[in-house]
């Protein structure tokens, strides 16, 4: 097993130990089985795998939206028992509220999460300034009072990112956030996300099927097998930051991408042949 970080309260921020998830009753679909992984505080992790490997189930488990069928999950040193309040989430669909303008959408978490919730009415100006500043860092200054449908897909996704970050979450969970965007916008948003992360250093988990995206953004990439999903290998990406689109043409970058691609192709092939996938090798 390439995952050498020992599970336990040591320094792992997100810690999965033997986690399995089965939907429905005992005969239900087994989405995840025996998942062990550890993500350090402030680390940018990516989870990649063939389709149907339970990437989205992983999201639900890590945020506490869904309890595991077996194993244990610890986030920030405490066992996860219900929805966490220290997370921000963004999805492939920006899921903005059409009746609120951009600023109102970004400020939504402040109306829910304590201690912001009780301070919001008395310190509205301060919070609004914060939201405006955050929008400005993703290049949306001047769009605060536009309704979501007036924004392009990329702008909506930037807004969604801001909404996920406005309450300074310790953990940012991203479920294929850029999958529905065109290639140029996607690369642009990689840079935006990297800037935000380098600035605030939250722990980030990116679920994606885009291997270049994973290699561009992540410090560590977990490769998952086909259903039931398990972590079959862990790759550390040691390309210096800030990474640029230029980095993606680097031979070392391509080497990493190629290796992961080969591993996923392998598990897909073995899955169709009905053979149990072996454990992958560490780079």
């Amino acid at each position, binding site marked *: 097993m390439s995952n050498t970080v020992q599970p336990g309260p040591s320094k792992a921020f997100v810690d999965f130990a033997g986690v399995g998830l089965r939907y429905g009753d005992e005969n239900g679909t087994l989405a995840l089985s025996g998942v062990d992984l550890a993500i350090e505080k402030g680390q940018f992790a990516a989870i990649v795998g063939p389709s149907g490997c339970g990437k989205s189930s992983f999201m639900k488990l890590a*945020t*506490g939206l869904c309890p595991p069928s077996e194993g244990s999950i610890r986030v920030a040193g405490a066992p996860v028992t219900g*929805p*966490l309040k220290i997370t921000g989430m963004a999805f492939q*669909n920006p899921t903005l*509220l059409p009746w609120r303008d951009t600023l109102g959408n970004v400020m*939504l978490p402040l109306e*829910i999460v304590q201690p912001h919730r009780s301070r919001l009415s008395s310190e509205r100006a301060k919070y609004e300034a914060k939201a405006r500043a955050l929008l400005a860092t993703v290049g949306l200054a001047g769009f605060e009072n536009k*309704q979501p449908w007036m924004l392009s897909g990329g702008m909506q996704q930037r807004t969604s990112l801001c909404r996920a970050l406005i309450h300074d979450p310790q953990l940012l969970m991203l479920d294929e956030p850029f999958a529905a965007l065109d290639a140029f916008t996607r690369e642009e948003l990689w840079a935006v996300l990297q800037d935000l992360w380098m600035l605030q250093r939250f722990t980030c988990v990116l679920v994606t099927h885009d291997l270049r995206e994973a290699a561009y953004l992540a410090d560590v990439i977990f490769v998952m097998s086909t259903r039931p999903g398990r972590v079959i290998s862990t790759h550390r990406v040691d390309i210096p930051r800030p990474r640029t689109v230029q980095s993606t043409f680097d031979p070392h970058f391509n080497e990493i991408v190629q290796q992961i691609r080969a591993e996923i192709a392998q598990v897909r092939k073995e899955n169709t042949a009905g053979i149990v996938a072996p454990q992958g090798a560490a780079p």
Partner: protein
Amino acid sequence: MSPKTERRLEKAAPWIVIIGLLIIWELVVLIFNPKPFILPAPSLVWKSFMDYREPIMAHAMFTLTNTMIGFAIGILVGSLMGIFIGSSRLVYAGFYPLLIGINSVPKAAVVPILVIWLGIGQPPAIATAFLLSFFPIAVNVAAGLATVEPELEDVLRSLGASKLDILRKISLPRSLPYFFASLKVAVTLAFVGAVISETLASNDGIGYMMLQAASQFRTSLMFAGLIVIAAMGIGAYLVCAYVEARMTGWATRKQAVMTGGG
């Protein structure tokens, strides 16, 4: 045709159609000359209206009051019931069939029961208006609540939002367009309910007046009553459509605000 005249024509179209129909109606009466108690000419209807405008307006006000009180209760009960059955799958499964059952009973058949409980006149008229109008509101609000995207709920749940938070921040605003769309249907049904009840058990109201006019073969007066009800119905509909456009403009986006659509 220039776009400008086209737009003007579009605005005038409903009036052109109504006036055209009235002219055809008048011509048909002139040409075929039916007995006035079979089909009175529009001019005769107008004359009856002017002759009896005071009692007609008094009856109309009675009907309008009953309709609006019934409609108001319908909005209140309908939205609460919609929120109730829309917020939980279990409640939805339990109550929805009952709601369908209540709705499929012809309300004219319920009026005699209401009369036994409430007497005649205003109370059963209000009750019938309420019974007819709450259903579309409840069903629409429930549908709006039940169709919230799960991801949107996940965003809030992952922040630790309570059920009430999700209802206030997402589900309720999301169901507002459904609610306002249902108001347009509900208000016309409320008129139907009030008039049915007045026809069966009342000494006031347009429904009662029409029944009296019918027993005396004063057909032109019946038509005058019909037109007054129609005018009130259209007026109430337009008010609801206007409120809808004002409150939930985000749902119709850049489309022109249509007062007659939907």
